[in-house]
């Protein structure tokens, strides 16, 4: 209450200045300012792909999804800023009509009241796989539709392994992976790159080891969790992984792998095409679990969501409906995902993609068995992910020190239980 009235005072004061100083610069009103019931003339769309500029195929593709009688205005925002921008925009009731939002952020956004649910928007998850659609389902309502999915795998440099006398097929569990890393580094190459940067990106890459040890997100302080932390910590301590892992994001870790020095790299399916274009032979294998078999990997990728609106809400929701349907409805998803290098969220459509391009074959099982990050915890995932990230950072800094690693995870457990 107080804040509101203070804000109003501020607004009034600022309005005075506006009249004085900006009178000359008329501001054009756009469609979103229209009153109730009026049809929109502009539909706004945000995505986290700044790498595609206005002249890119992706931009043109998205613009072609504008509902009849409107033009679609696309804005690309760096992934890390999109949720905050959306928060501000919803607060001021000038939110975009459609946003592509990173999947682990969807539950948080939904419980914070940023997203319209299936009550208002005809969000049809259709036949998307359950593990991929999970983040959009909250309390029995749908808040978003997966536009596609990606996941993580273990790339290796076949040339480096060959030179070190390592047979990739022999790598089936953590022990054999460690042996391979020892052999590769003894041969004069470097070991493995991964993204250990603080935050969600680091947690995303930590989860295959965390889940692969048998740990669960409901108990981040378990002995299994500590084992996963210890594995990565030892890699730094033994010199298998670069010390820059504590600040490397997935792109930086990939750049290191591209130098050709490293035997292995944990990275995403979005680099599968690039991997085929290198001077060395880069091959993907599933990330091994501690005691053998493929570790569960987390699902990545964005959801199409419709932010909440106050004024003229139904017009905005109707527009959102059309745009989302155009991007992911009936068979359109493959077109969308081919643009982005994503897998379709539906098993049948995905099979079509895999059949069409052999580079996807090794990824088929990984994506089918991938786990949603928010499946266990819903909106509480955000907090647990933060605690895990802090624990991972501490483990990497410990460079092998066991006491420091177990203490780090004990702290994670206690910060979550608070």
């Amino acid at each position, binding site marked *: 209450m107080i804040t509101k009235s203070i*804000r109003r005072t*501020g*607004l009034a004061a*600022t*309005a005075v200045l*506006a009249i004085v*100083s*900006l009178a000359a*610069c008329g*501001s*054009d*009103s756009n469609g979103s300012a229209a009153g109730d019931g009026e049809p929109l003339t502009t539909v*706004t769309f945000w995505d*986290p*792909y*700044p*790498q595609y*500029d*206005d002249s890119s195929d992706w931009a043109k593709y998205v613009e072609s999804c504008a509902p009849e009688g409107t033009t679609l*205005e696309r*804005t*690309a*925002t*760096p*992934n890390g*800023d999109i949720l905050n*921008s959306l928060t*501000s925009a919803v*607060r*001021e009731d*000038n939110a975009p009509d459609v946003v592509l939002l*990173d999947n682990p952020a969807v539950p948080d956004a939904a419980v914070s009241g940023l997203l319209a649910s299936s009550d208002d928007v005809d969000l049809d998850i259709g036949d998307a796989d359950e593990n991929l659609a999970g983040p959009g389902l909250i309390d029995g309502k749908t808040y978003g539709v997966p536009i596609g999915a990606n996941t993580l795998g273990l790339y290796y440099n076949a040339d480096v392994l060959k030179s070190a006398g390592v047979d990739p097929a022999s790598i089936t569990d953590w022990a054999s992976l460690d042996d391979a890393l020892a052999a590769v580094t003894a041969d004069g190459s470097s070991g493995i790159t991964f993204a250990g940067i603080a935050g969600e990106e680091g947690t995303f890459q930590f989860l295959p080891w965390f889940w692969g040890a048998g740990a669960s997100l409901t108990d981040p302080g378990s002995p299994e969790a500590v084992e996963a932390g210890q594995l990565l910590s030892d890699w730094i301590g033994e010199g298998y992984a670069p010390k820059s892992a504590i600040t490397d*994001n*997935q*792109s*930086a870790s*990939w*750049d*290191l792998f*591209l*130098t*050709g020095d490293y035997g292995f790299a944990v990275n*995403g399916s*979005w*680099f599968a095409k690039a991997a085929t274009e*290198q*001077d060395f032979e880069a091959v993907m294998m599933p990330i091994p679990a501690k005691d053998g078999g493929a570790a569960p990997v987390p699902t*990545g990728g964005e959801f199409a969501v419709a932010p909440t609106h106050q004024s003229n809400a139904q017009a905005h929701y109707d527009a959102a409906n059309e745009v989302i349907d155009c991007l992911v409805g009936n068979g359109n998803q493959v077109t969308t995902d081919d643009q982005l290098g994503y897998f379709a969220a539906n098993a049948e459509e995905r099979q079509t993609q895999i059949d069409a391009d052999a580079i996807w074959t090794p990824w088929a099982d990984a994506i089918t068995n991938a786990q949603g990050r928010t499946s266990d915890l819903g909106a509480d995932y955000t907090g647990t992910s933060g605690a895990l990230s802090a624990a991972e950072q501490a483990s990497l800094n410990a460079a092998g020190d066991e006491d420091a690693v177990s203490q780090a995870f004990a702290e994670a457990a206690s910060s979550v239980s608070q």
Partner: protein
Amino acid sequence: MAMQALPGSPGTTRSQDAARRPRRPERSAGGRPRGREAWKTVLGLVLTALMLFPLYWMLNVSLTERSAIREASLYPRAFTLDNYRTVLGDQLPYLGTSMVVGLGTVVLTLVIAAPAGYALGKLLTRGRRTLSFLLIVAQMIPAVVMALGFYAVYTDLGVLDTLPGLILADSTIAVPFAVMLFSAFMSGIPQELLEAAQIDGASHTRTFFTVVLPLSRNAAVTVGLFAFLWAWSDFLFTSTLNRGGGDLRPITMGLYDYIGSQNQEWGQLMATAVLASVPTAVLLVVAQRFVAAGLTAGAVKD
């Protein structure tokens, strides 16, 4: 750049020379003949090279193929011009926007700060301390807080995603600093000069324009330089207040074209940074020449 906003800037180079001339005899009096200054140039070159090493690194990366950017080679071993080819097509309009925003911020900052600096430095006796105190506090407000506050206001005013809106926001970085610097410099202007003008019947306004402002050229250039640089490099205001600028986005946002959620093209990003630095670097070196030497002191002496 800033000079355009100031009266009396033409001919600066000449007066600069004039102001420097008296020093030369002093130098020889100090027993340091001109030829011995070579060591200073050499030392200056070494220091500049050290200072600019990170720039060299940026250039190095911008000329390197992606597969080798993390090899940390001291020269672009895997040489390529592809990054520049990509960037030249995409980023040039953004450079223009940044220039407009930068210059607009300079003008707005000078218009608000120079008169206020005069008032604080020379005219007001009471309330001066309070005001400079408030300015210090104003400097401290974290930009994060300001940006969140502006967003609400800008939405209501319809200046979100507009250049005037961005200029207004960017000027808030420089104005408190500018007022403080102006008042510090203007308080050092000998009172005799102002009084001489006033005895001639000039009003405070005329004194300000004919005496104070020309004498404060150093401060104005410094302020203009800072206002420009801060506006040029601002990211926070741009990213909150001008995200949807389209072709009217400043270069700091253009850089983000190369930072995707999972993939970042550092070679292209660095190439953009190099391109963005060239015009401003030239501007800087030119602006430096206009910082006239010892004008105030010269005026008193005469």
